[in-house]
């Protein structure tokens, strides 16, 4: 197959998967098998593209010209590869988890659930492979709309309210700020392509470009930079597999990926360094990091706590982009992968507790670790990764981000990273500690008869937890890809 065809197949496969789900709806076992097979095939295709990217190629696929000069086009470059690898690998794993969760939790409308789940992956892959701002925006919005039925899956009053916040914030930021920035870019640069070294350098005064940067960074609402973060906790009303894949991986990572991509390929590192708003935005991200962690502290509901932890962690990546140096970009890009594996493990564990013990609140999980050792063991590993401790992958991305702050001469930002890790140490490790070492509260009989989560879910948890540890020992792939990104960016600027 030609490279272009592989790209097309990769983005379309999840759509076929969705159609298969629809056709096979009468038999749930066959339906889920369909999802898993298509998920595996999609990942296989992404691996094929990975090989090409590692060989230095940039496979490309041009589709229609929407308006003259603005085509829908795909180009696979190393940064997009990072995101695509993460999303396509975690999709089948999450599907496996969802099989156990959705049945164990007796959820309704499972066909619709798996249908939009697959469609959302197509959207995420479209974002990852987009060759220009327009294509990226197209799939970004596509992702917003096709995840709406997932967020509001329960169709209750609460789901409706959360759905409003979700759509409201994501669309207000993307249409009101991001689209304006995109059209402004088009007006200034005459192109919206992603190019090594950026397209905006020298097209307008530093003030205007700085303003556009602010529009972009806040316009990507999916990156959840405060004050546009409210949609993320609101979306936690969704079933846990949705929270796991979409709000720890696909949707939020589409956001921070967009920020990184715009920083590297629209502005370029060199231009970014000269703009007055860049350090300002780095501090905005730092504020979100600290505030997100602090709010996470106050949450007793486990999923809500993880949501605020995600908000905090996403800003690590925004911070990495706004450091505007190679280490920051490398750290930010690697954090996309590292955080994804760590956070999805945490969400899986939270969902497993909900299915097996029907518990949402941390204060009621005392002693549960003894009945669910695998789940809470995995939670522990995931926590280590988020905090940035060995032996979990998260330590690498934190390391590079820290190096980035030093290179930028911003000791204050380094301190922010450290403080945030310390906060994480408390609010995340509190959960396994209470589960393993605290005695169940007096008179709580509900822990009897509780077993581990259903087998498919348990397998999924073990896969992601193992991968989190594996990333500590073998981070080379992500590092290599990110080095290709910064080298390409430097090469293009010369």
């Amino acid at each position, binding site marked *: 197959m030609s490279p272009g065809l592989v790209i097309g197949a990769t983005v379309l496969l999840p759509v076929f998967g969705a159609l298969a789900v629809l056709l096979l709806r009468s038999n749930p076992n066959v339906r889920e098998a369909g999802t898993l097979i298509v998920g595996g095939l999609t990942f296989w295709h992404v691996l094929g593209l990975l090989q090409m990217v590692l060989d230095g190629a940039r496979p490309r696929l041009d589709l229609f010209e929407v308006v*003259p000069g603005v085509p829908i086009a795909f180009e696979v470059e190393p940064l997009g590869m990072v995101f695509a690898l993460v999303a396509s690998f975690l999709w089948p794993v999450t599907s496996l988890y969802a099989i156990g969760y959705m049945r164990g939790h007796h959820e309704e409308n499972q066909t619709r659930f798996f249908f939009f789940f697959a469609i959302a992956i197509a959207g995420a892959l479209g974002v990852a492979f987009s060759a220009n701002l327009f294509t990226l925006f197209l799939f970004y919005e596509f992702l917003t709309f096709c995840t709406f039925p997932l967020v509001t899956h329960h*169709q209750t009053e609460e789901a409706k309210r959360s759905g409003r916040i979700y759509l409201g914030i994501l669309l207000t930021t993307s249409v009101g700020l991001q689209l304006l920035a995109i059209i402004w870019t088009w007006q200034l640069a005459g192109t919206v392509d992603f190019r090594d070294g950026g397209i905006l350098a020298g097209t307008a005064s530093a003030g205007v470009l700085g303003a556009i940067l602010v529009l972009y960074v806040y316009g990507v609402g999916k990156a959840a930079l405060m004050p546009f973060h409210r949609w993320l906790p609101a979306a936690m009303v969704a079933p846990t597999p949705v929270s796991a894949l979409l709000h720890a991986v696909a949707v939020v990572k589409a956001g921070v990926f967009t920020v990184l991509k715009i920083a590297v390929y629209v502005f370029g590192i060199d231009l970014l360094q000269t703009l007055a708003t860049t350090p300002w935005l780095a501090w905005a991200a730092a504020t979100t990091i600290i505030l997100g962690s602090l709010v996470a502290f106050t949450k007793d509901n486990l999923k809500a706590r993880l949501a605020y932890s995600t908000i905090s962690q996403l800003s690590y990546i925004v911070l990495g982009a706004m450091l505007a140096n190679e280490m920051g970009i490398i750290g930010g890009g690697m954090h996309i992968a590292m955080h994804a594996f760590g956070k999805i493990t945490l969400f899986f564990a939270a969902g497993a507790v909900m299915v097996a013990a029907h518990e949402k609140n941390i204060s009621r999980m005392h002693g549960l670790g003894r009945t669910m050792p695998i789940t809470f063991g995995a939670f522990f590993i995931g926590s280590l990764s988020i905090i940035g401790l060995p032996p979990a992958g998260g330590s690498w991305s934190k390391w590079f981000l820290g190096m980035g702050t030093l290179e930028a001469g911003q000791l204050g930002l380094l301190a922010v990273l450290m403080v945030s890790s310390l906060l994480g140490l408390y609010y995340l490790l509190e959960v396994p500690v209470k589960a393993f070492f605290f005695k169940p509260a007096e008179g709580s009989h509900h822990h009897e008869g509780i077993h581990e989560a259903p087998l498919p879910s348990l397998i999924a948890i073990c896969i992601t937890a193992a991968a989190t540890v594996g990333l500590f020992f073998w981070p080379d792939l992500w590092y290599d890809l990110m080095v290709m990104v910064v080298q390409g960016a430097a090469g293009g600027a010369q």
Partner: protein
Amino acid sequence: MAEAIFTHLVEETGLSDHFEIDSVGTISYHVGGWPPPIGIELRIDLVNAFVAVIVAMIGAIAIPYARTSIAQEVSEDRGALFYAAFILSLAGLLGISVTGDVFNVFVFLEVSSLSGYAMIALGQDRRALTAAFQYLIMGSVGATFIVIGIGLMYVMTGTLNMADLAARLPEVANNRTIPVAFTFLTVGITLKLALFPLHLWLPNAYTYAPSAVTAFMASTATKVSVYLLLRFFFTVFGESFSYEVMQLDRVLLPLAVVAILAMSLVAIYQANVKRLLAFSSVAQIGYMVLGISFGSVLGVTAGIIHLFNHALMKGALFMAMGCVMYRVGSVRIEKMAGLGKSMPWTMAAFVAGGLSLIGVPATVGFVSKWYLVQAALEQGMWPVAVVVLIGSLMALIYIWKVVEVAYFQSAEPGAEIREAPLSMLIPTWILVAASFYFGIDASLTADVATRAAETLIGGLQ
């Protein structure tokens, strides 16, 4: 190919000496063989060819749709009346599109309007009568203003032919009469196209007319009026007179901005979805006029593109509401509970049309917004660009109000509602499909609109 067929047909019918085709492909037909400016000229260039295509296309899609819809909403003895009025209205609108004679414009305008009043009055709700009467009064005032403007121009120049007027008007432009004629025409036409604050007739007319009529009129009647605005401002009076002497932009720009914001806001508070869409139409007309008010090639391109795109999406939305009317008997929001389940295709069409109204990428609405925001930024008016985007977000609110009721509330128990018949669904979905097709590949519409804008602004120099 098409040109060869056309030439062949002309020769076969022995009309070749009535036709003239110039080097850029403008077709001129001399009615009755009298050469212009003495005789009436039908003149088709890229601008009105595009408008004629829109009108004819919507007409062709609306007629099959109307068969089922009208059979239910209009009593049987008046069915024939509807079809007669519909064909007359279509003829009138096409007539306005193709004529090169300003008095002819007035005649065709009255043909289309009078038949339009009759069609609105056919609505089953008794308020349709007052709505039609209101439209009759206001429409007639508009038409009178237009004919006064035409008369004043004729007094000054002695000609009614558009090309001839364009050549002669500059000689007498210093006379006070011409600005007065210009003003009468502007007010008359903006009343016809329902520019805020001259839109008062539109919401009632669209709400109480039979569904098929609303779908047809919303996609054609106001669009043809926008075309008239373009034709008079750019071809007849010329860009420099309209924008520099009369400072048209200073009037149109604020009105368009207010239309977008205020009418979208009013739409949010409507409980009747047809009325909601009607107010949304007034806001969308604001977008077209906004583009025109810039007076630049990019702005006029945006206006013309939106003319086409809005016809597609609003047609689809009103047709979807016609389907709801057919099955449920009401288009009030609270009656739509559970329709997402019982009428999945209809509501999916509504969501798709709504996405286009919001301006989600890959729909026609996005293409319009792309050009409009670009045109605003080109003028350095970034607050106006922000207004355009705020309008999109307000569209999100009023569309989502309907979506939430249809998909999140369950139907009243005992209500047996089925999907609308195919004869209505297929035309609806043709428009939905077109609104996606031209959103993904807008090269055709963008190209035609750009060339049309260049033709207009280049004038007849």
